[in-house]
């Protein structure tokens, strides 16, 4: 059975972590691994912040009556949405895991433009802190969607400052995307052909394309929004002759593809985890790789499913509905390929694998309920209710956050050189799974029964389900907090991992843990395809060991 380290290893002498010392050497670094760590720290802090806002929301919804003022509640859910979407979900996997792993996985010493990479972290921090300062000064009450004309003409809150922050963070996405695309094209090690790329790299590549094509559109939309507020002109305000639906088109033209910026990298992580813990090559490798590209492309054609009730033409609605069903196909292809990979695999259930399995189940629910939303007639009933909230949390948290955590656990030994305690890992994974379902499943029912989103009060008959949801959120919060403690603990006390604690395939497992600054002592030469596992041999070895253990008893 593949599993935790048996042998005793020593920490390598010089690693990217101790190669240079002092805060300054981190803040001015060009090393993609160090930049990934910078991102890891800042993103974790923002995630905690977003969680605090979520707690506020759930506490308010514990009882039907108002605990917070409506205005305060609006600011809380807006802050929650903005922090989670723009400051956590979009950068999380690309900027932390992608930054750390992409160059190593293709056998490169660094990204193509190390300084640009550092710049992207600074842009992210500047944008993030501006947005944060807007929140400290009083916040925004428009929702993370900034619908006009409320956001341009009526809201008395800090729309401009927040918009500026998001605009700047957008450039951080663009620079990261550029860097990844160029690195994947130009810096692959000898023998690392496109058909040998790990699926994680494929997914990062597809994501980068979406970032490059989509982000500028949101940037310009934010510019127009801000300019409209400053100039007092009404391109988006019907009272002044403008058209609010134009804003919605522009916004969703980015924000639907953005859901794929969040979920594609997660799918890449899952492909790696499934292969490693079932010891098989991912079934239908090229289907999985190309479905990423298909999602990236088709994802740009379905934004109109967010405008079914906006008054867009009925024909547009029908076409967008149809296209949305089509975009579900490549996602389903992936799910079928993962499950087929498990079949006849030599499976083991370490923490990362628990996350991977949770992902498959939760993403299936999220995707299928996406089809409910995409069905034109049904959506008229469920739009703007808690059903939508549940749908997108199943994909954003159930898929992306789960995959992110699974990836952090899987590559933690590589990043830090030490292993975390499995028991606590599994326990927190299970708490998260239970807590998550308890939080969000009731919301499907609530939405179906008609509870609208974005209100701080609700009729008493909805209370039971809301109490369940808040209870689930508390379990979820505990589950999220546990890794902070045991991962930090492992930095000092965890057993030394050695280069390949999982016995996994992939270039990242062929170098030391943690890797040296230039990743490899010598440029690796790739001679086999990705995931060259032998599940049958592994399984029979495992069975033999089991027999022996029995006899020994």
């Amino acid at each position, binding site marked *: 059975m593949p599993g935790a380290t048996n042998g005793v290893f020593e920490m390598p002498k010089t690693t990217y972590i101790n190669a240079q010392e002092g805060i300054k050497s981190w803040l001015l670094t060009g090393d993609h691994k160090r930049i990934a760590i910078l991102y890891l720290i800042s993103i974790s802090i923002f995630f905690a912040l977003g969680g605090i806002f979520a707690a506020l929301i759930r506490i308010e919804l514990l009882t039907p009556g108002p605990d917070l003022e409506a205005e305060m509640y609006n600011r809380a859910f807006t802050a929650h949405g903005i922090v989670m979407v723009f400051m956590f979900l979009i950068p999380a996997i690309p900027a932390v895991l992608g930054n750390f792993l992409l160059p190593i996985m293709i056998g490169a010493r660094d990204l193509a433009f190390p300084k640009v990479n550092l710049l992207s972290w600074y842009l992210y921090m500047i944008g993030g802190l501006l947005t944060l300062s807007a929140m400290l000064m009083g916040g925004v009450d428009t929702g993370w969607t900034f619908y006009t004309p409320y956001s341009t003409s009526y809201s008395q809150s800090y729309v401009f400052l927040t918009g500026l922050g998001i605009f700047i963070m957008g450039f951080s996405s*663009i620079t990261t*995307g*550029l860097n990844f*695309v*160029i690195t994947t094209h130009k810096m692959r090690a000898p023998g690392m052909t496109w058909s040998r790329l790990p699926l994680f790299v494929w997914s990062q590549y597809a994501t980068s394309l979406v970032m*490059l*094509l*989509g*982000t*500028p*559109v949101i*940037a*310009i*939309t934010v*510019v*127009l929004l801000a*300019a*409209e507020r*400053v*100039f*007092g*002109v*009404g*391109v988006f305000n019907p009272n*002044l*002759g*403008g*058209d609010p639906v*134009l804003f919605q*088109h*522009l916004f969703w*033209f980015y924000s639907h593809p953005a859901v794929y910026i969040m979920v594609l990298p997660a799918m890449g992580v899952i492909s790696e985890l499934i292969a490693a813990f079932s010891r098989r090559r991912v079934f239908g490798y090229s289907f999985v790789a190309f479905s990423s590209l298909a999602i990236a492309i088709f994802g740009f054609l379905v934004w109109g499913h967010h405008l079914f009730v906006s008054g867009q033409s009925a024909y547009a609605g029908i076409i967008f509905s149809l296209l949305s069903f089509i975009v579900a196909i490549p996602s389903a292809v992936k799910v079928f390929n993962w499950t087929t990979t498990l079949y006849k695999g030599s499976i083991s259930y370490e923490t990362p694998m628990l996350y991977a399995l949770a992902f498959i189940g939760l993403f299936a629910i999220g995707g299928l309920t996406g089809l409910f939303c995409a069905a034109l007639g049904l959506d008229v009933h469920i739009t703007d209710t808690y059903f939508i909230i549940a749908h997108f949390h199943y994909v954003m948290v159930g898929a992306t956050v789960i995959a992110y955590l699974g990836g952090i656990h899987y590559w933690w030994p590589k990043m830090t050189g030490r292993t975390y305690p499995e028991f606590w890992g599994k326990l927190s994974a299970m708490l998260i799974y239970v807590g998550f379902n308890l939080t969000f499943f009731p919301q499907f029912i609530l939405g179906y029964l008609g509870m609208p989103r974005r209100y701080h009060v609700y009729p008493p008959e909805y209370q039971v389900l809301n109490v369940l949801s808040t209870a689930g959120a508390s379990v979820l919060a505990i589950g999220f907090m546990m890794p902070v403690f045991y991962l930090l603990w492992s930095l000092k006390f965890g057993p030394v991992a050695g280069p390949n604690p999982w016995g996994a395939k992939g270039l990242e497992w062929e170098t030391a843990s943690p890797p040296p600054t230039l990743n490899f002592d010598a440029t690796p030469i790739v001679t086999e395809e990705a995931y060259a596992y032998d599940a049958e041999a592994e399984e029979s070895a495992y069975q033999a060991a089991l027999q022996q253990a029995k006899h020994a008893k």
Partner: protein
Amino acid sequence: MWAFLVTEVMFFGGLFLAYTFLRWKYHDAVVAASGHLDWILGGVNTGVLLISSLTMAMAVHAAQEGKRKATVNFLILTMILGAVFLGVKAFEYSHKWHDGLFPGFNFHWTENPGYAGGAEMFLFLYFVMTGLHGLHMVVGIGLVAWIIKRANRGDFTPEYNIPVEITGLYWHFVDIVWIFLYPLLYLIQPPHH
């Protein structure tokens, strides 16, 4: 760099979409407001930019041939032309302010009052679009200045001149954006003053 230019296309694409909407919805007001733009100045600027594209191309060519002096001279010429463009633009902007055609802060529409809303929006887009284009020009001039410094230092050889080439690509791109902006903004109505 090509990847970056695709990003830029999407960036301006959003604006062109807003423009299309405006023009379709407020056709007459847009025509009236466009009449207030000085097509001659715009035309002069178009010429200036076209010439600067030429000098830029010459600079890239010279760099590829390893002619340092020529490279630097053409680059300086490009930079001057860029500055002329911005100067003319600044003159146009101040003119708009004087005429009370600055949306939001100083806007007094004296003609057909039915057109006021559409005209203000058109001028708003005019300022946003040309403003962003101007910002790109400023960045471009900065890039050219940086390339001049490096060329002077003798960084470029016939084998290594990618930065010159990339800056050239960027410069041409910004010019092309203007080639679209000019007719769409200035030439909607046959000029008769």
